[in-house]
């Protein structure tokens, strides 16, 4: 490939948003006839790079050239016209129109202003046949599976004479067979000389299709590697990085013996619990007083597991038992009834009500649990809120100010307080420390330890391995929407080992939970 000219080069691209340097001198090359995976964790700058390329954002610095010509697109439309088409994660087509129309709308063949339907259908069939897809193009798009819709989106993209095709997480809602269909089409297009940028979180898929990999981390280029020369473990290391967070060294508290906890009474047992398109059926037991860490890359299904256990998504497979008794968690109310609490990762959109005061936000879940017809007396509210504001050291310690005025870390604590006040027996924490400062992080970690010592079961989800390792008694490793293994967190387990498991999908020597 070295002898050929790249179809696309991006040189020293920088882009800043207020307060954030999203891209910092990133280089990117793309050759015709290759599938190039763009990898990186959340916030690494993948989508910013793509948006700079397609003109959604302007770049602060750097040069983009397409086939040797310097370009700067004003938006996705102009980019598509120049041969750079994007297919997004969500299918951006109209389900109420026919397949043929979705491919050609806006570019329909016409005579004297009247659309030639026959001609359009014929061309649609030909185009799809090129992708080896033989379907009835007169049917509404909505009647086909997501995979087919995705392929129709690709057909629409390549009809605009695409030279560069960007697939932004196209596989996140496809199942294995559908992914294989998509790959077949990608190989087909690659062989025709189209350059494909493939963004995904699924490692297997990268190794299944990509020729080369570019890794970004924190807005910087880590490197560009031929897939064959970059083992999975090395890729994961490059994505996550190995910078130890020296600032927050939680006192090595005497962690209770994980095996002892495992022998105790299980609080919640999930058996072959799963949901199609979301999580492959998994089994997981959480004991009273146990911290179970969920490790895995973004998109590996961590949040989906939490949502199933909380009944926020409905499982279509398997069953759950609480205290040994069958407990179908159909919805969050049922889960709350079983003393399960869930702090979601999107505290702004799913958790807190910004306009309400700290007190009102804290009281919310408890009030809901009591039923709205039995208001909690104001004096009792004040008592409870004061207690938790102090216990979690929420600052400012004024329960009457609106929550949106608090810092991220303190908002997180308010959310925690809301659930703690209901005295749950299982607390699910989804990325509780993301985007908050180090001090608040340490306080939340300390709190998790205290709570579990007090007998509460905790399911702790975090992208930061160090944090998971420090807190958990047991680590469940997720990969590609599958719970691949459980590791008892004893002295044999360290970040390397977990990374290895994430990378390879199989667990290596060492003890495993029976």
């Amino acid at each position, binding site marked *: 490939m070295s002898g050929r000219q790249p179809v696309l080069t991006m040189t020293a691209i920088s882009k800043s948003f207020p307060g954030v340097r999203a891209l910092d001198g990133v280089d990117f090359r793309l050759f015709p006839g290759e599938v190039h995976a763009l990898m990186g964790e959340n916030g690494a700058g993948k989508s910013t790079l793509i948006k700079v390329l397609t003109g959604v954002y302007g770049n602060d610095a750097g040069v983009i050239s397409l086939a040797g010509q310097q370009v700067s697109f004003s938006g996705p439309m102009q980019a598509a016209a120049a041969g750079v088409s994007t297919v997004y994660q969500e299918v951006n087509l109209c*389900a109420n*129109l026919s397949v043929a129309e979705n491919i050609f*709308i806006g570019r329909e063949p016409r005579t004297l202003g009247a659309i030639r339907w026959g001609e359009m259908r014929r061309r649609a069939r030909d185009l799809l046949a090129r992708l080896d*897809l*033989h379907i009835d193009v007169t049917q*509404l798009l909505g*009647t086909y599976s997501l995979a*087919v819709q995705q392929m129709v989106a690709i057909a*629409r993209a390549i009809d605009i004479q695409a030279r560069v095709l960007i697939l932004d997480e196209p596989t996140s809602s496809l199942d294995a067979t559908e992914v294989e269909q998509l790959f077949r089409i990608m190989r087909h297009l690659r062989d025709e000389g189209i350059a494909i940028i493939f963004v995904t979180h699924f490692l297997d898929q990268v190794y299944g299709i990509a020729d080369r990999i570019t890794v970004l981390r924190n807005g910087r280029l880590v490197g560009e590697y031929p897939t064959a020369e970059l083992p999975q473990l090395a890729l994961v290391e490059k994505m996550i990085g190995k910078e130890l967070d020296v600032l927050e060294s939680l006192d090595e508290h005497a962690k209770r013996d994980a095996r002892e906890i495992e022998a105790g009474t299980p609080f919640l047992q999930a058996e072959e619990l799963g949901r199609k398109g979301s999580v492959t059926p998994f089994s997981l037991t959480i004991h009273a007083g146990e911290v179970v860490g969920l490790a895995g890359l973004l998109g590996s299904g961590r949040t989906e597991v939490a949502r199933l256990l909380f009944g926020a998504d409905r499982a279509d497979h398997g069953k759950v038992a609480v205290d040994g008794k069958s407990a179908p968690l159909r919805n969050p109310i049922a889960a709350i009834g079983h003393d399960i609490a869930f702090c979601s990762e999107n505290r702004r959109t799913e958790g807190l009500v910004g306009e309400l005061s700290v007190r009102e936000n804290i009281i919310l879940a408890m009030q809901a649990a009591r039923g709205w017809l039995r208001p909690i007396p104001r004096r009792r509210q004040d008592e409870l809120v004061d207690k938790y504001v102090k216990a979690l050291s929420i600052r400012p310690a004024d329960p009457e100010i609106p929550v949106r005025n608090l810092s991220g870390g303190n908002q997180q604590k308010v959310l925690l307080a809301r659930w703690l006040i209901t005295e749950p027996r299982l607390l699910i924490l989804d990325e509780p420390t993301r985007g908050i400062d180090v001090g608040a992080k340490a306080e939340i970690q300390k709190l998790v330890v205290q709570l579990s010592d007090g007998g509460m079961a905790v399911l702790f989800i975090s992208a930061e391995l160090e944090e998971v390792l420090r807190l958990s008694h047991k680590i469940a490793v997720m990969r590609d929407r599958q719970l691949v293994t459980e590791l008892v967190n004893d002295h044999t387990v360290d970040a390397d080992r977990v990374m290895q498991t994430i990378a390879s999908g199989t667990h290596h020597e060492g003890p495993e939970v029976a």
Partner: protein
Amino acid sequence: MTTTSLTPTRDWWRIPQRYVPVLATLTLLLVMYAVGVSQYRAFSNVQVIFNVFIDNGFLLVVAVGMTFVILTGGIDLSVGSVVAMTAMMSASLLQGGMDPAAVLVIALLVGPTLGFLMGCVIHFFEIQPFIVTLAGMFFARGMCTFISKSSIPITDPFWTSMAQERIGDPRGNFVSISVLIAFVVVVVGAFVLAYTRLGRNVYALGGNQQSALLMGLPVGQTKIAVYAISGLCSAIGGILLSFYTLSGAPLIAVGMELDVIAAVVIGGTVLTGGSGYVFGTVLGVLVLGVIRTLITFDGSLNSWWTKIVIGGLLFAFILLQRLIGIRKK
């Protein structure tokens, strides 16, 4: 690859779901007609059907415009008032002695202009169509009273000839010119929706506005266009109404927008947009007309029964749409 997994399950006897609402309306219409014929001997007279068209020609024209709007997922509450305003204006200008041709041109310009302006407000300021057209409704109704507080008769020879001209067969069955005009509007409307980019963009916009934008379709222009089209249809409807009544009255066609919306929805157009046909709208208007005729034939029923029946039908059809929507998922 297994081809079966790619093809949606479709049995040969299954009607494609997009036609179900229209076919339901057609069935309903046939049943109602059959009931009428079996109950009242005179009902089988062809003229009964022609009268339905004569009495509802202007409604049909306005409903075609409303179909465009509802297909985009919008709503136009101003149509009744624009109809009245157009009729009022024509009557007033004719009374002032203006040439009928000039009156027609002016009358046909005012409605679309108001529609265009409302469309611009809806698009550029991203305001709910409901609110904007509500304002348009009050404005146009106010203009009616501004022109005259009382009814103005039309004596213009062209207008009276249009009102009295009968086009019919030797057996004495006839339709008015208004009916022919309404048919032309229906055919043009159906053609635009099915065979032009504008029409297909209307469907795309109603299906998923975000997607339509990302597919590079002129979302703004389309949105403005449908309100202008609705305004034009209302203006034509207003002129047809003035042919029919030979007068302009400030309080005519009050609440007509609701009849029109009911007809469009009963005709199978989904209120959230993206699915529906002009042919369905024709059926919807006929259903309304036949209900009125049935109640007139009965003689003992108060005309308010029309409203009650339409209310019930509306519920039934919205539920039907919802059920189809759920089954799709």
